[in-house]
């Protein structure tokens, strides 16, 4: 009973959507790739029919839109068949990007929490800092990413850290906004209670504000980890990086390797899903330990 319910409520809707996407995808493979085949036939001077073109649209070397099976084959080839130390292994590139993502996410989380604590506890910081935090996010990341890399390179910092800092630049924002809200979430009555006990500021923070902010923190962390990954990939794009998913996307577009681009895109999406999933599991674990209603 419960199992059929699970299948009906959770698996079936997802499968339906996946199936719909696959159908639309196949249709567009034919529509987008067929003109190239007709061109080829016209140049060779051989008349061709739709039924002859159809199978060819699924087997082009540089299709406008690769067929799903081509992307899967490429993913398989570059993850399972290649040793992960190889420069052609997608796992290797994903790891490069992941390490920058995680470092940037960690720095962004700490920075975001520290700023939020300052903003909540200090009026001057509240007034002066919050507008800048918001303004920082109005600058296009693509514009500022090369600047960060160039500036840091000139003072001798290269490699992982500059990319991670671009992730930090994106990920600290949702943490600040979420934590400011979370640290201010305790009701007046809960704060009054602390006052009747003559509790110190540190006690109010650790025993009330911090635990009360946990749901807000984890919601922010989910957003932050996803955009950290975006930041790391974007950090690799305009900077001529030689490794990482961003570099893979870039070299793919240089050489018209659409299959490679799509494989890297799917790798990035899968990575994002796993990262968000891990944060989500941590979220429910923490809430469970905090006695949340199941």
């Amino acid at each position, binding site marked *: 009973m419960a199992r059929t319910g699970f299948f009906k409520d959770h698996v079936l809707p997802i499968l339906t959507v996946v199936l719909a996407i696959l159908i639309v995808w196949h249709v567009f493979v034919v529509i987008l790739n067929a003109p190239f085949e007709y061109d080829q036939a016209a140049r060779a001077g051989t008349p061709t029919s739709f039924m002859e073109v159809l199978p060819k649209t699924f087997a082009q070397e540089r299709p406008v839109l690769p067929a799903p099976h081509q992307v899967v084959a490429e993913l398989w080839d570059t993850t399972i068949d290649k040793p992960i130390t190889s420069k052609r292994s997608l796992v290797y590139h994903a790891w490069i990007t992941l390490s920058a993502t995680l470092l940037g996410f960690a720095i962004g989380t700490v920075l975001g929490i520290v700023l939020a604590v300052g903003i909540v506890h200090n009026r001057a910081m509240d007034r002066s800092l919050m507008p800048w935090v918001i303004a920082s996010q109005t600058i296009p990341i693509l514009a500022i990413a090369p600047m960060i890399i160039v500036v840091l390179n000139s003072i001798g910092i290269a490699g992982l850290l500059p990319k991670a800092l671009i992730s930090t630049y994106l990920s600290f924002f949702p943490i600040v906004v979420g934590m400011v809200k979370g640290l201010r979430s305790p009701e007046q009555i*809960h704060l009054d*209670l*602390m006052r*009747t006990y*003559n*509790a110190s500021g540190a006690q109010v923070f650790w025993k009330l504000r911090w635990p009360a902010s946990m749901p807000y923190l984890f919601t922010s962390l989910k957003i932050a980890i996803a955009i950290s990954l975006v930041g790391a990939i974007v950090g690799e794009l305009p900077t001529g990086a030689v490794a990482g998913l961003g570099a893979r996307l870039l070299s793919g577009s240089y050489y018209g390797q659409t299959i490679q681009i799509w494989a890297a895109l799917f790798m990035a999406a899968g990575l994002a899903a796993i990262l968000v999933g891990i944060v989500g599991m941590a979220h429910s674990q923490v809430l469970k330990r905090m*006695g949340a209603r199941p």
Partner: protein
Amino acid sequence: MPLSNETVVRAEELGLTFQTNDGPVTALTGVSLDIRKGDFVSFIGPSGCGKTTFLRIIADLEQPTAGRISVNGMTPEQARKARAYGYVFQAAALYPWRTIEKNIALPLEIMGFSSAEKKERIERTLALVNLSGFGKKYPWQLSGGMQQRASIARALAFDADLLLMDEPFGALDEIVRDHLNEQLLKLWAATRKTICFVTHSIPEAVYLSTRIVVMSPRPGRVTDVIESTLPKERPLGIRDTPEFLEIAHRVREGLHAGHIHED
């Protein structure tokens, strides 16, 4: 029937005027009152009569703008820092991420009690409010009445002699409220604390109190102070006796007079 002559709270011509955008609002004016050790004093009146404000001034949660007040011979701030009182709010205000026993442990943690003493006090106060065995539950697993009892246990845990209660049973249904009133009287008899109790229910005020302070709004002030003549032993049935009804009548008259004055 004062149990002793020692004064716990003394207010003289106490007043509080809030500055709002619509001009000053007088929440409380000219309140002079002595609360003696061991008293059970109820403050009754319609909304806006300043009964909660008065309680919050005693607790140093609001600052008076006129008159003088002392708590245990000290200023309210000194008394608060000396942890002279336990406060029970309108809502239970339990921290949802703490179990009941951890909630009761909260003031003990803040005040630096040893873990052995914490354990002993948690068990003792849980027994006092009839919640033994519920220590490991989370607040949401308990009914509203049980939650409010847990919040009373929390206020009792650090043995302050003064208990300030702001409409603690206001949100509960009448059957639960009757039951909790009965338990509160037993608890008061057992612990000999001084209790200040804010309510808007006449039967509740008369049933519980040794003294009833009747207040009226605009501006908030005291219109009558009634010494209860009821015996200390009070079964729930006492509410049908002529003596009880007479006191209730006087409270009602006091409330009514306040309203006529308003017109």
